[in-house]
């Protein structure tokens, strides 16, 4: 490929037309000409400069300035030591930043620790090896978990600077859990039994019985004529009515957040949980959606979508505040309930209001699973 670097060449001559004719004869491309007293400055290609030097021996020819590749080569030659040291520093910094200097496996089980050291080494994760990308780490964790289903329950690999931290939870053999020989189903709450499904053991309570927390509902001891004939691990489902008293208060004045539809984008840098915005925020009250663009250990660059909001004050009527309080109380209870559990009854016991707030006290009846497995330890 022809070197298309452009140079300004100074030729000592006061015969302008003669020189140009000579340049034309040897096929020099003259891109621009300037003239002073005894010198003629021409802008030409570096290749043409070499031809001038070769054919116009009697002229004093000198390069004044350079552009393009040749300029960069010259600068590179001048600062070669500096450039090489910068490159070496960057490479060293990259290597040091991405190298594992210590592996910390957080477990007391030596067997699991040895197993993990061996496994991680086989995936190239040991001291003085390079860190791996987050997606690769996820695959490694999945593979280790698949290969050691019986030994490891949960595994997490994370990097804290130069240290690789491996958090692990060992698997407790399920056989141990199933090996309970004697267990009962006991009540976890006070209540009234609504339904009782018995799978194994002897039911000590019946539907519509009132029970207290800790009462045995299904026993694992099978008796006949007051004599224990067999001991099993009781199993079954007991649903009961449970009663709650809930107190809620709702102020009449509430703050409503509205989006104006005005969105602005910003960049932020996160270093060790400290967040710095790169540009000045152009909205006053805002909510932020953060998308991660780049992450290296504790350093993150994030794209921030700033959504402008307006905060309005709204005054609730007494009826609205009352309904809101009812809803809040219901939500409070629903948070504690599982999938097949529900609220059966809801009654307001007390309703008091002052200038700014409404106070409600409610009685709520729920249907809940109140049975829990309790192991009977030997000797007790």
């Amino acid at each position, binding site marked *: 490929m022809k070197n298309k670097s452009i140079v300004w060449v100074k030729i000592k001559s006061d015969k302008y037309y003669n020189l140009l*004719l000579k340049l034309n004869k040897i096929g020099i*491309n003259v891109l621009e000409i300037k003239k002073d007293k005894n010198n003629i400055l021409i802008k030409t290609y570096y290749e043409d400069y070499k031809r001038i030097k070769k054919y116009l021996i009697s002229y004093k020819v000198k390069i004044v300035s350079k552009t393009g590749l040749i300029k960069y080569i010259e600068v590179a030659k001048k600062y070669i030591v500096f450039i090489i040291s910068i490159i070496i520093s960057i490479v060293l910094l990259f290597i040091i930043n991405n190298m594992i200097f210590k592996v910390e496996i957080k477990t007391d089980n030596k067997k699991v620790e040895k197993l993990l050291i061996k496994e991680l080494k086989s995936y190239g994760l040991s001291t003085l090896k390079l860190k791996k990308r987050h997606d690769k780490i996820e695959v490694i964790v999945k593979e280790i978990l698949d290969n050691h289903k019986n030994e490891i329950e949960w595994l997490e690999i994370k990097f804290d600077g130069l240290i690789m931290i491996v958090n692990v939870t060992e698997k407790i053999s399920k056989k141990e859990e199933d090996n309970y020989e004697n267990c009962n189903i006991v009540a976890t709450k006070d209540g009234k039994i609504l339904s009782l499904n018995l799978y194994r053991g002897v039911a000590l309570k019946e539907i519509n019985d009132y029970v207290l927390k800790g009462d045995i509902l299904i026993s694992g001891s099978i008796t006949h004529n007051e004599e224990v004939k067999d001991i099993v691990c009781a199993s079954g489902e007991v649903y009961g009515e449970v009663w709650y008293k809930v107190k809620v208060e709702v102020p009449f004045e509430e703050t409503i957040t509205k989006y104006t539809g005005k969105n602005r984008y910003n960049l932020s840098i996160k270093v060790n949980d400290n967040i710095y915005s790169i540009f000045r925020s152009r909205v006053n009250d805002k909510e932020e959606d953060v998308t991660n663009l780049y992450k290296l250990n504790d350093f993150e660059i994030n794209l921030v979508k700033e959504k402008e909001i307006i905060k309005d004050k709204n005054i609730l009527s007494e009826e609205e505040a009352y309904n809101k309080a009812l809803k809040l109380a219901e939500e409070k209870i629903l948070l504690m309930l599982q999938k097949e559990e529900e609220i059966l009854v809801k009654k307001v016991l007390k309703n008091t209001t002052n200038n700014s707030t409404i106070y409600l006290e409610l009685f709520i009846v729920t249907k809940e699973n109140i049975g829990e497995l309790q192991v009977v330890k030997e000797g007790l």
Partner: protein
Amino acid sequence: MKNLHFKDTFKNFLFDLENFITIYDKHLHVFNYQKLDKLSEKEIDLIIDNKKVIIEGNNLVVKQMTKQELLIEGFILKVEFKYEK
């Protein structure tokens, strides 16, 4: 139907065979010249496609000069073509 000279047009498109002279107010642009014969303040002689082109004027200077193109600046008084017999 008119003859569109496809072959010639295509050849010219590929190899830039056509030559032309464009005259502006104080400039003269020559494309595809063969030889620069004479160069002075008052006269520039060129050979273009076997014909001699004589450019006469005052303060004639070359602004740009490549193997194909020539850009002349100055007061152009006359452009003369001389066909060789």
